[in-house]
């Protein structure tokens, strides 16, 4: 906590900064954003910008996503004060290996994340933006939302939902690129495919239940 206070002092004189998105939109950001985005926080500490009129370029993020992230941080500005400690640390009967909870998304967050969809890919965009900006709460909401969509579905349903094409061995995404360009690597490709086949037999969930 003590270090947090010191860090805040470093950029405390101007409380707002400007950032610019990939597509050139410029946004004002305040403490709520700076405190939650570790990336920005670190950047400001290193840059020591005196002139807050010069926007910090965020080349990886589109304006719509940046705007959404700023809105998210404004809403959650007071959350930081209560970083959840590992409450159950001393609960010895707790299984350390339970999957993390994803049913604890707040109502506001649920509504917020609804504007992003799989079809348009915007759900992945906001997750990538959260990841780049290192906004833990936003990243968690995005990842939990996807986990909740996947849970309980069989592989076909997941394929359909996320528009994943089934790639039989030797084709599709994982085919080594260089195999197309040179003959030599054509042999390699054969080998790799075989290896892959043996290694990557499509796992069947039923494996565990026979």
């Amino acid at each position, binding site marked *: 906590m003590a270090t947090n206070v010191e860090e805040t002092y470093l950029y405390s004189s101007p409380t707002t900064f400007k950032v610019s998105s990939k597509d050139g939109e410029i946004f004002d950001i305040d403490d709520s954003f700076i405190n939650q985005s570790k990336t920005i926080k670190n950047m400001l500490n290193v840059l020591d910008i005196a002139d807050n009129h010069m926007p910090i370029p965020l080349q990886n993020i589109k304006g719509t996503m940046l705007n959404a992230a700023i809105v998210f941080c404004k809403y959650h500005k007071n959350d930081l004060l209560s970083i959840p400690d590992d409450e159950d640390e001393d609960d010895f009967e707790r299984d350390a290996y339970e999957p993390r909870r994803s049913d604890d998304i707040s109502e506001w967050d649920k509504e917020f994340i609804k504007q992003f969809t799989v079809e348009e890919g915007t759900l*992945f965009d906001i997750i990538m933006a959260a990841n780049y900006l290192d906004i833990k709460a936003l990243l968690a909401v995005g990842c939990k939302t996807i986990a*909740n969509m996947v849970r309980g579905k069989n592989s076909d349903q997941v394929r359909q939902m996320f528009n994943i094409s089934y790639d039989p061995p030797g084709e599709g995404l994982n085919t080594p690129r260089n195999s197309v360009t040179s003959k030599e690597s054509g042999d390699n490709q054969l080998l790799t495919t075989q290896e892959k086949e043996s290694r990557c037999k499509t796992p069947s969930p039923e494996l565990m239940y026979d």
Partner: protein
Amino acid sequence: MSQKLANDDTIIPLTETTEEYSSLTLNNLPFDILFTICTYLDLRSLVRLSSTCRYLYDKCLHPLQFQTLNLQPYWYGITNYSIDNFFSLKCTQIKYLSLAWTKSIHLKSFTQLLNTQKLIQLNLACCQYINRAYIDVISKQCQQLEIINLENCFSLISDDFIALKNLKNLKSINFYRTKIDHRTLIPLIKNNYLHLEYVNLGACQQLSETDYIVKLLFSKCLQLKALDLWRAHGLSQNGFLSIIGERVNVDEEKQNPHDGITDELLNNLTTTVCCLENLKELDFGWCDLPPNFIQKFVKNCGKSLMKLFLTACRRITNDDMIAIGEYCPQLKQLDILGSRIINEESIHLVLKKCTNLEFLDLSFCDKIESKTIDMWNKMYKQCKSIKRSYSPRDQIDDIYTEFA
């Protein structure tokens, strides 16, 4: 390419679509994001997701995703085939493993699965196939092991436990309802007493020399945070009194010398008062504590105590309760089920002083009126539940409704 570039019309809609639609899909997300998503998934959903395409297979079923694995929910379906052909291949980095409830995993498959040298936690609760050979494998292959749970492993008898003493990093041991005895337990405690934090010896029916074991735990295991002695076998009044530095009948002790226990650790400690500052949970259920034992005990060990179970300890006194109010500021849960001595006054004091108290079980305490409990429920809102199953003073006729 150059032709396309020359034609402006084709470029503009293209850039527009990248504005509106992202090129991202689930199966081109980077590893770290997919990994985070997968940490929220149960095993079955994870395997199904990874069956959709090879990219996801490679990323989602990465060995790092299997640092922890709980097979308990799938106990009915786990076969040696699935262990050999899937889990052993994926679990090369495993640290936390639960095989609780699984049926007859072959020794060979078990050995292979544990062959990572990295295991920290192993839960084998209710695994009836566990025998001495499996214990030997654990003691050889899991030197880093800190947490072991063998509760309800009925097939293990007497010397089967002996190899466990080779584990030197144990923080948590759970032998609830096993047949472990003092000959195998004492060496295990002696090799790990410096870091033991959680010990469950509940309902260990073969336990003898329990007085010595309990004294050892209370006087040497200074890191102890939780101790469960629910229905622990063989605890005598002297055992309890030695914890608080008292002893009623020393002659009795001399007539029954410990058989073969070397006492280098406990020399001159028999009358030492035990002082455990970190103790948070203690279960003395059905242990028949001597009167006023708790009173002296909490003075030394009550500081951090959060859960205290005195279930069916019929001889605990009102002075014990007053001392709990005095010395257990952290207390969250108290269970005095079945006491016919404890009165309303002393419980009221506990409620007043222990402001963190959330659960209080007063079932079968017939000195406490139901209407008083109703009043307390209104007065002490922080206490979420004051439990009262069966109040003997009201409606004796209804005694069997409990079991209806």
